[in-house]
């Protein structure tokens, strides 16, 4: 599988309190869409369309998305309205936007796509699910390309849920920084089956239980044994995570460069997609031109699973 283009938007919440870095979307969305759609639906639809535009593709042969919890602010807004208006006079637009495949449906309408179109909502396993789904379609000769996208949205109630769920200093963090940087993130990729000059190849992708450390290490070591120029893009959030969860997985005595992405991108269910975007950026950066051959994205998603995605310069 070859990544032809990518486009992303993200927002880190804690501690940066940054807003989405939202571009002017009027080149691809009309005024009503910009006004009516919630921030994540709007951002995801725009990112999907922008990704297609960058790849110079009018309409993809498949549209597959993954999200941990969907457009949560629409869900919360509708719940709040149910309470406020005592189950009367509710706005159906908010209900529609809370549906997990609304982003897919809107992209399909905007690019006149009548092809395979689905939404995986399987929390930490979404990246693996979406790539498996597209790869299966490639293998069976059903499609030659596909737009894949990941979006997750952070709200204040999420903070309450995460804290209550035990994703706090006792299990996830650190001596020096007691908070995870929760984030909203949107990442889209246009992928095709056949090689194109300049494309980045997805050599493999794996999903492990977090307890399968020996297996993960064996897999990563097998890669570095055959490839001389491997760099690692790791999803650790801080020193504690790096030392306890990531460093033990890397081949002993490695000399490779290691990059860290969660201090910048934050944590969410589909954060591995942010790692892929980070790696794509490094491949495409002028200063790295031709110097990086392989990048391994290593990401522990909360305390649920470990994802490994191996990317290489296809040229």
């Amino acid at each position, binding site marked *: 599988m070859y990544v032809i283009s990518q486009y992303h938007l993200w927002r880190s919440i804690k501690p940066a309190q940054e807003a989405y870095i939202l571009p002017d979307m009027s080149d691809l969305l009309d005024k009503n869409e910009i006004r009516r759609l919630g921030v994540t639906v709007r951002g995801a639809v725009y990112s999907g369309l922008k990704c297609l535009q960058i790849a110079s593709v009018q309409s993809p042969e498949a549209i597959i998305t993954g999200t941990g919890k969907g457009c949560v602010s629409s869900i919360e807004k509708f*719940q709040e309205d149910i309470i406020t208006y005592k*189950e009367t006079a*509710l706005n159906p637009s908010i209900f529609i936007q809370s549906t*997990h495949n609304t982003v897919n449906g809107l992209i399909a309408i905007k690019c*006149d*796509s009548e092809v395979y179109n689905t939404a*995986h909502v399987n929390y930490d396993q979404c990246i693996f*699910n979406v790539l498996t789904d597209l790869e*299966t379609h490639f293998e069976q000769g059903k499609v030659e390309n596909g737009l894949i996208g990941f979006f997750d949205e952070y709200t204040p109630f999420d903070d309450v849920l995460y804290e209550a769920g035990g994703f706090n200093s006792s299990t996830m963090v650190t001596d020096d920084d007691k908070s995870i940087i929760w984030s909203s993130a949107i990442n889209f990729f246009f992928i095709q089956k056949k090689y194109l000059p300049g494309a980045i190849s997805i050599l493999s992708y794996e999903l492990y239980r977090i307890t399968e450390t020996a297996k993960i290490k064996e897999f990563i070591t097998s890669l570095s044994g055959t490839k001389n120029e491997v760099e690692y893009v790791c999803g650790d959030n801080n020193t504690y995570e790096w030392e306890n969860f990531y460093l033990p997985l890397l081949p002993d005595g490695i000399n490779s460069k290691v990059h860290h992405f969660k201090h910048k991108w934050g944590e969410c269910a589909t954060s591995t997609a942010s790692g892929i975007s980070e790696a794509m950026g490094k491949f495409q950066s002028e200063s790295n031109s031709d110097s990086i051959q392989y990048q391994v994205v290593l990401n522990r998603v909360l305390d649920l699973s470990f994802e490994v995605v191996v990317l290489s310069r296809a040229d």
Partner: protein
Amino acid sequence: MQNEIWITGIGICSSIGLNQDETLSNLEAEKSGLTLLNHLNSRFVNEAIVGEILLSDNELADYSVFKNTPGVHRSLFLADIACREALNQAGLSSLEMNEVMILNGTTTAGMTETEKEYEAFLRNHTTPSSYRARMVDCGCINRSLTEKYGLKFHSMTFSTACSSSSNAIINGANLLRSGKVTRVLAGGVDTLSRFTINGFNSLKNMSLSPCKPFDKDRIGLNLGEGAAYLVMETASSASARGREAMAIYRGGISTNESFHITGSHPEGDGAYHAMKLALEDADLDPADIDNIHAHGTATFDNDQAEGIALKKVFGDHPTFMSTKGYTGHTLAASGALNAVISILGMQKRKYWPNLGFEVIDPAHRLMPVVRSGDMKKPHVLINSFGFGGNNTTFIISNPSGCM
């Protein structure tokens, strides 16, 4: 035969029964499970007609292996009841269970609990328990079932509104065909919640009287709740462990009609393409199909579009029915429910009538079956259509062939 995908176990629970026997008994009696809404904290209690399972969460827990597990919600109870029935029927050993990948379809997941927790948070800044906090996303059902049953760690959850469980089934079959897995547990679950009832009411397509699928005077749907799952495996895998097929998955397709975010194309273009492509995938002609288990929600637009599409594919006299008059519209679970009901029908070589129909719709002049009948051909075509323009059709067959 070696490339065939066999269905070796089924499980179902809905307002017409907590298992296959109860469901079959109510289908044969042509007894609807629609009642006035009872268990939710909603203004629609005793007002809305729904397909509700008439057991409280505590009562349902008695049927579930999650009875004493903290934080469990109604969706997980229902999924567990239907999944265990399917897995038991498939007769899998614990070693074989390790190879089963679950593909689930759901839209609500833990919504019944999330809406309570969110209201408590808004009113009093109350923090949910740690168990509840980890059970709000759609993937929590897979995580719980995988761990409890010892299934394969890798799973999938589809959420494409009302076509979610059909997407789980179609994708399960695709994974089996690709050789990536040898055995899947595919289906879906959704429960009634204040969120969905108010959502569909805001769209003005919820009926406060029993639904009338395909009737000229239909005024909307009745929501329902339920779960249904199929154990699907390659013929070689099933044969190797001495199992026979209850039904065979012949083919299916998932497409998008790219027309409107909630409405169907008025000429049924999306439904038409889904049915045509599914027939191609199954290598069958329209004349090979015995009956069509329609989506048939009883909303004005959906039934008109589906009816017109049925006419384009099957001509003036297709044998078709919607079973929403029995179970209500169980949203994400509806495609899997249709599949299990059709397989129960295959075993009796029967189909059951479309409840609530009286007057032919002039838009297509098609009449669904109003009396139970005998299956004469082995193949049943199943439709599910969802918001976002998502259209799915798949075909299952009786392994015993024609009468």
